[in-house]
């Protein structure tokens, strides 16, 4: 039994080169799993349904590892050279996977193809590695030690990867840099092997060129990681993404399932086509029923045109000016057939003028006098949006509102953001408005609040609503002005430019719901 004899010679001494290769198993295993986690995470971001995505990706990966293992029997010749080639290829494909997937993020159809191609290729390559290494090392170790060593390192690497990924890598590096970092590690393993094994010394120059080129590409991608990843990583969508676009101002994403279309801006839900009528009827009609013939109406925010759709239900309305920062947004709601149907062609109406400008800049420049002003900004979750809820801003609104005019401000949830809601009410009152707060239940959002305000108590709940409303009527509106104890008024400070208490209230009100 010559094999037995050889084994005696092999002993349990680990030769340095053997240790090196075992360590590379460890790195390779870690890298491989990291690439799959990246693919799974990205697929969940874009395609939704993380259970499905992770299951299919890991399944596909394992299957292709099997394919790789099977293919390994056709690999012969200089095994170390093969190993180095495979390492470099894994490094390149895996390292570039996240940047590449981010780059084609907008093309939903091809995204899936590239995603599974990358998963498949990495699977094949990683699947090749272990059999190759076993063959390289078979002369160094007793078989049982070899198998034990290789799989120990393999599984420990897997454990490390699965903990590092969510706890350190994603929060601190982000997906793109994580991907590049592990691509770099693969290349490093290739480089070390290249220099520690004389079997491949004649190939050093050629491989060095390839590794050097790859490193340059990685370095460039590393620096531009933020540019590549133009959308918020925290965005997760439950449904199929049917449209996504990054404008200079925000990331617009539309998702669809069998019942509804949803619009997300920077990952925050703006509306669901199922119940948006509740929100927009509540936003518009309390003010408009009192002013059916308003000659000038101003809408700040609301680039989806849904608020304008409600305004145009009053045939007597004169000119409507819509101010929304993002031309990408208003254009989309003027052109996309499905969205145009949703807003009933409101942004194409001859009565409507769309101005793409910063709302604060517009209001400061404008001289009024509007009968109705609708203020539909994002929630005051940061200091720059918070400026649009200050006494300074409401003073400008006061200035451009006609004396008998009505203004309505979307004012976050009075249930979750109780102090935030009443702070908005108090801030408007502080500049001289008479406020009438009310709220409505919108299933996608929960209890939602609005503050209606006038200069001189001119508002009455006596007008007639247009036909065809699905949510609002006079009786219902009267009830909406009643606040049950868990949303009742609380004392707050007034929100000012030089003391933005609202952002702090908002953060502490909503904190428990977002973290």
């Amino acid at each position, binding site marked *: 039994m010559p094999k037995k004899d050889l084994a005696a010679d092999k002993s349990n001494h680990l030769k340095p080169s053997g240790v090196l290769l075992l360590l590379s198993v460890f790195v390779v295993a870690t890298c491989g799993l990291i690439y799959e986690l990246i693919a799974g995470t990205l697929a969940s971001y874009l395609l939704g349904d993380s259970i499905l995505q992770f299951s299919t990706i890991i399944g596909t990966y394992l299957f292709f590892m099997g394919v790789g293992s099977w293919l390994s029997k056709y690999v012969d010749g200089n095994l170390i050279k093969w190993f180095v080639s495979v390492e470099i290829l894994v490094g390149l494909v895996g390292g570039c996977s996240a940047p590449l997937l981010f780059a084609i993020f907008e093309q939903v159809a091809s995204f899936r193809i590239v995603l599974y191609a990358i998963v498949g290729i990495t699977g094949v390559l990683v699947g090749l590695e272990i059999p190759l290494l076993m063959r390289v090392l078979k002369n160094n170790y007793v078989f049982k030690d070899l198998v034990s060593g290789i799989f120990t390192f393999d599984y420990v690497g897997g454990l490390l990867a699965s903990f590092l990924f969510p706890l350190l890598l994603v929060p601190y590096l982000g997906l793109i840099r994580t991907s590049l970092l592990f691509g770099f590690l693969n290349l490093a393993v290739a480089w070390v092997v290249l220099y520690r094994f004389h079997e491949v010394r004649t190939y050093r120059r050629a491989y060095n060129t390839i590794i050097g080129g790859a490193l340059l590409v990685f370095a460039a991608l590393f620096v531009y990681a933020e540019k590549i990843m133009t959308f918020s990583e925290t965005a997760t969508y439950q449904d199929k993404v049917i449209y996504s676009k990054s404008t200079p101002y925000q990331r617009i994403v539309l998702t669809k399932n069998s019942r509804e279309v949803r619009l997300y801006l920077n990952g925050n839900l703006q509306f669901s086509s199922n119940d948006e009528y509740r929100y927009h009827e509540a936003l518009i009609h309390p003010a408009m029923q009192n002013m059916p013939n308003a000659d000038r109406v101003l809408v700040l925010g609301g680039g989806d045109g849904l608020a304008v759709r409600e305004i145009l239900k009053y045939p007597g309305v004169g000119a409507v000016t819509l101010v929304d920062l993002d031309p990408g947004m208003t254009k989309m709601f003027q052109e996309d057939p499905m969205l145009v149907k949703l807003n009933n062609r409101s942004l194409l109406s001859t009565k409507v003028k769309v101005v793409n400008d910063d709302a604060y800049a517009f209001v400061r420049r404008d001289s009024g006098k509007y009968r109705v002003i609708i203020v539909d900004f994002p929630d005051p979750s940061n200091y720059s949006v918070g400026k649009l809820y200050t*006494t300074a801003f409401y003073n400008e609104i006061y200035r451009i509102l006609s004396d008998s005019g009505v203004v309505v401000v979307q004012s976050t949830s009075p249930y979750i953001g109780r102090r935030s809601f009443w702070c908005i009410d108090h801030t408007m009152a502080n500049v001289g408005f008479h406020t009438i707060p009310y709220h409505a239940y919108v299933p996608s959002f929960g209890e939602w609040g609005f503050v209606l305000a006038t200069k001189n108590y001119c508002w009455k709940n006596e007008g007639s609503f247009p036909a065809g409303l699905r949510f609002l009527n006079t009786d219902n509106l009267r009830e909406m002005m009643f606040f049950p104890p868990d949303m009742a008024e609380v004392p707050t400070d007034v929100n000012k430019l030089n003391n933005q208490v609202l952002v702090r209230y908002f953060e502490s009100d909503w904190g428990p719901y977002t973290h």
Partner: protein
Amino acid sequence: MSRRNFLLQLAAGGVVLLTGAGCGVRRGAGNIPGTIVGANSKTGHLLRNGGPYPEPHHTVEVNVLIVGGGISGLSAKRWLQQEGVKDVLLLEMDDHFGGNATYGQNPVSKYPWGAHYIPVPDLRNREILDFLHQIGTITGFDTAGLPIYNEYHLCHDPEERLFIDGIWQDGIVPENGVPAADKEQFRRFSAEVAAFKAAVGSDGRDAFAIPVDTSSADAVYRDLDRISFRQYLTQKGYTSRYLLWYLEYGCKDDFGTNLDGTSAWAGIHYFACRKGRGVNANSSSVLTWPEGNGFLMEHLKSQCVANEIKLRQLVYRIEPVDGGGMNAYVADMVTGKGFIVHAQKLLLATPQMVNKHLLKGYGERTAACAAFAYAPWLIANITVNGFEKQHGMPLCWDNVFYGKPSVGYVNANHQDLGRVSKNVLTFYKSYTDHDPATERNRLYAKTRSELLDEILDELDFVHPGITAQIEHADLWLWGHGMVAPKVGFMWGADRTAAAQPIDNRVFFGHSDLSGISIFEEAFYRGIHAAQQIVTAS
């Protein structure tokens, strides 16, 4: 440092080590577009080297000649106009007005090249309140006479943050990871400051006031000028490194000096002089604009008759005229020609380092001038295309780095109301390790690339990877940035001597005569000198 903080840092540090992000991807500083801009040192050197000057060709007769177009000169000009004094000419050697209130502008924002804010003034500073009312910074007064400030001019929230222990904390008084014993010293110090703020001397005057010269003469307070701020703090048993860092930061920020180089009186004045109030403001409120105090300067300037204030006119010699008045020799840097201004009264609104040359004929006065020291400053305006994710407090107006040599940066676009995609960061650094002259020579010897490296070392520490986001960086070297309130200088003889009018013909009105370089002092120095001229006429 709490255990949680420690672990967080350990984790963050691990990632940094893993990726080499701390040292990896910095682009060569020299590749960032921009230049060294700055005070017209060529004209300045002409003065220092004593020529050569053009031959004077003609003589211009004026009633009052003001030399220097910084805040004090413009303030004097405005005041004389308001008092109905006719025939007042102001000459500035540089190609812009404003001195330390200079500013610049690029497509992203206006930005300061020097002083960038004023605290809400004390109600007794009536002249400043009136000026602020004229220019719309104060919109009115309530029935009790309290000013109502323009909300667009009050510094917006969030105001200040500090980078400490790897995280941006709210406010610049160190909190994050600061032990209770240190916090206790902060409490003790602020109680002491509150007492000094309220303190009134035996002469009935505030112990610490603006203008400085209206402060009490009571020796209990003035004797604080005889020791350094550090000596004072040591005597009082302050040992917390956080507190000492914070106070030294204050000295650097307001005076360009360190704890040893600052008179204890001045060090306390910085904290104890802020007594302003308003309907919508308190003593810690500040007024600021994208262009900094350039905003105030432009308004002062616009109140001066335009063709009576002139740029690029170097006054290089003055001498008394037998028949009365003074002759000022002027080199017109625009035409290269020379002329003489014969003025009945001459107001030098120039720093004493300039007066030292102009007053060569007045031996004993140049000695007083020589006692004035000036701290060198480096200011950079850096256009940044967005920030990476930051931990903790978001971008504020004032952004300070704990334990770093600079005093941090100000976000010049902070008062913008609209959406901002790019920012101009105004970075400030004073050089305090050695005496001002040594530091000044070292500063001048550095290349732009070396200076940028100094700045980027700090910026990259608090914003890893920011170098890649920098689109443009201009630098300004202020060799004589601010008068240094050295030990014994605030209430020593030199400061008083340098401010004395000469022969009822030459008057003095630069902010350095106050020992501290702030807008309020410059504004009042100008008014004070103008009043002396009116009285003397």
